[in-house]
């Protein structure tokens, strides 16, 4: 049995006095798609950002394919913060897509995708460009390779961002509300790309409000509220069969506005 | 470097600092009146007024202050007008800062969300009332930080009136330097006074900003 891609145990995080994550346990197996849902302020984005240690956590552990991220064992038995280089090495294998795309505005779409390949994977200029073009084609944007982000729609920018993360050939991908900043009519094109990634077997952990997408694409839904995972299971179970009052209350607002 | 020089001239420097402060205050006060008038012209519905205001801003931001001051000085001399140098200096400062202040005020008005005036009109407020009760107070509040900044700029710009012989901080520092043959101490001393004044103004400005922010929501 292979190690789970993501293993989170007893994750705790504090912002000053406020405890944002209170002992979270979550496992994501290889090729699994897990969607994190919950009200705002529940800690779902913070949880996601702890997985690649963009947000340091205070207690508990996050393991990527068995390896602890963010900390390493000190000689005296305790643990100490991980050195910069091994942390960067681990981050190389984790792809992340942000709510506000975070494309680099002074680079073309192609350059955005090729830059990490050149600087981090150390590919030669031409090879990086080739790979980048292939990735842009993969997300349906080959004709926009020379465009600057300011000339692209939100949906196009997000697809370039996905291509940028994908080009690194990561072992897993994290999505932080990838469609929340998009106009409604642009959401579909991004969800399509994510769906195709899932069908190819990419391991994905997604924070989202798109219940329809979660219902059809996720293997598992995890509902988080006030820093704790209150319910998890297959979509059918969480959406229709769970008796958790907070879950029911949260989903009620969606029933009222969308049907899925 | 002999600090005693600064200590001995402390009295003169303090007096000169007072002159600098007074000139700058007068300059910015008259400048505000000019700036408000020019801003009103630039916001007016009459094209010729807008053009006139625009020309004023262009001229008085484009001509360096030193040139302007000397121009006024020679102008008064040529046409035999017996106006004291101090008035000429304050006039020059006021004309110059008026251009910048008009732009600050104009920027403040443009920063106001248009919806506020529209909402007031929809509620039945008469035009001048909208101006007086809604737009003007907010525009003034937004203007305070850049106006404080402008005041600090005027304090520094006032050093140029030394060329027409007024006994402000820079001129007095020059006098001390030539009398004691110790330019280092003289100019460092003068500089310290400028810094002290600026620090006080900046501190006052921070307090004013906080007071105003407490009232308005942003």
């Amino acid at each position: 049995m292979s190690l789970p891609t993501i293993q989170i145990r007893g994750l705790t995080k504090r912002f000053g006095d406020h405890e944002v994550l209170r002992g979270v346990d979550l496992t994501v197996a290889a090729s699994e798609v897990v969607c994190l849902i919950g009200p705002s302020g529940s800690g779902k984005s913070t949880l996601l950002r702890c997985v690649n240690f963009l947000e340091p956590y205070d207690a508990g552990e996050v393991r990527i394919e068995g390896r602890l991220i963010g900390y390493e064992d000190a000689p005296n038995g305790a643990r100490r913060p991980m050195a910069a280089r091994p942390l960067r090495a681990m981050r190389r294998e984790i792809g992340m897509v942000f709510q506000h795309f975070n494309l680099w505005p002074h680079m073309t779409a192609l350059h955005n995708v090729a830059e990490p390949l050149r600087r981090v994977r150390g590919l030669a200029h031409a090879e990086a460009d080739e790979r980048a073009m292939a990735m842009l084609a993969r997300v349906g944007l080959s004709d926009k390779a020379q465009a600057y982000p300011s000339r692209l729609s939100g949906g196009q920018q997000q697809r370039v961002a996905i291509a940028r993360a994908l080009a690194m050939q990561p072992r897993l991908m994290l999505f932080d509300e990838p469609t929340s900043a998009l106009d409604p009519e642009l959401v579909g094109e991004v969800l399509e790309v994510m769906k195709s990634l899932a069908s190819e077997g990419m391991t994905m952990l997604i924070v989202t409000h798109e219940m329809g997408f979660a219902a059809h694409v996720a293997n598992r839904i995890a509902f988080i509220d006030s820093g704790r995972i209150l319910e998890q299971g297959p979509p059918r179970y969480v959406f229709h069969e769970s008796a958790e009052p907070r879950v029911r209350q949260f989903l009620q607002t969606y029933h009222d506005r969308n049907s899925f | 470097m002999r600090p005693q020089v600064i200590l001995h001239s402390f009295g003169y420097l303090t007096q000169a600092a007072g002159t600098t402060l007074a000139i700058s205050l007068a300059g910015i006060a008259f400048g505000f009146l000019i700036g408000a008038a020019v801003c009103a012209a630039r916001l007016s519905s009459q094209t010729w007024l807008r053009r006139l205001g625009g020309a004023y801003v262009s001229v008085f931001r484009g001509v360096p202050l030193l040139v302007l001051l000397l121009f006024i000085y020679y102008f008064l001399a040529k046409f035999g007008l017996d106006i004291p140098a101090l008035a000429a200096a304050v006039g020059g400062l006021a004309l110059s800062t008026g251009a910048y202040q008009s732009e600050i005020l104009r920027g403040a008005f443009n920063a106001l969300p248009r919806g506020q005036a529209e909402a007031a009109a929809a509620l039945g407020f008469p035009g001048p009332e909208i101006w007086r009760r809604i737009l003007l107070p907010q525009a003034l509040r937004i203007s305070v930080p850049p106006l404080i900044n402008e005041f600090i700029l005027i304090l520094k710009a006032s050093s140029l009136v030394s060329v027409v012989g007024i006994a402000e901080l820079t001129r007095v520092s020059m006098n001390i330097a030539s009398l004691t043959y110790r330019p280092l101490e003289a100019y460092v001393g003068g500089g310290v006074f400028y810094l002290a004044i600026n620090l006080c103004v900046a501190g006052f400005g921070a307090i004013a900003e906080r007071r105003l922010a407490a009232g308005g929501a942003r």
Partner: protein
Amino acid sequence: MNPDVLLRYAPSLISGFGVTVMCWGAGGALGLILGFIISLLYRLPFAPLRWLLRALIEVFRGTPFLMQLFLLYAGGPYIGLKLNATTAGVVGLGLYSSAYFAEIFRGGFAAVPHGQIEAAMSVGMGPRDTLLRVTLPGALIAAVPPIVNMLIVLSKETVVLSIITVPELMYQMQTMAAETFTAFDAIFAMAVFYWLLVEATSRLGRRVEARVTAFMAQEASPA
């Protein structure tokens, strides 16, 4: 004003203009380089250094340019710095503007959205690459409009150099005025000249700004 007078003094006026441009260019370049270095040093996590730099910046921005020039030109020899007027003028402009440019570059760095840095971190980019390929380009582009503004301000400050006898345009004009008793006409011509100069460079500056930031501008209708 007598056109013969102008013709006679044309060479000195032209040379004066040349000195003005040279001082502005050299002073501006010095200021940009120094200001950039200061802004980079300011990013180091070394509190005493930042404190020192901040003090320097506040002194140069909190005291009049004229005082700084006097200190440099008249006071310099007392600390072993014997500069001729023009050199003092250029160095003075450079030091004075460096404080402003340092703040401009600092603002440029701050203007780079943190999300872009996070994107670089998330792909495992190292600090050097992040600085050179993401932070620096973003900061420099953001700094262009205020830099253009400051350079125009600097062009007006060059007239102050005439007070310490730098032979730039204003000084030459005043010499001509004194020798030919045409003070008013001369200063009037100066006013008109500088007004036109500042107008022209402002328009040019706006065009340069637009050109440099064009590719980052939002298009009217997104695809």
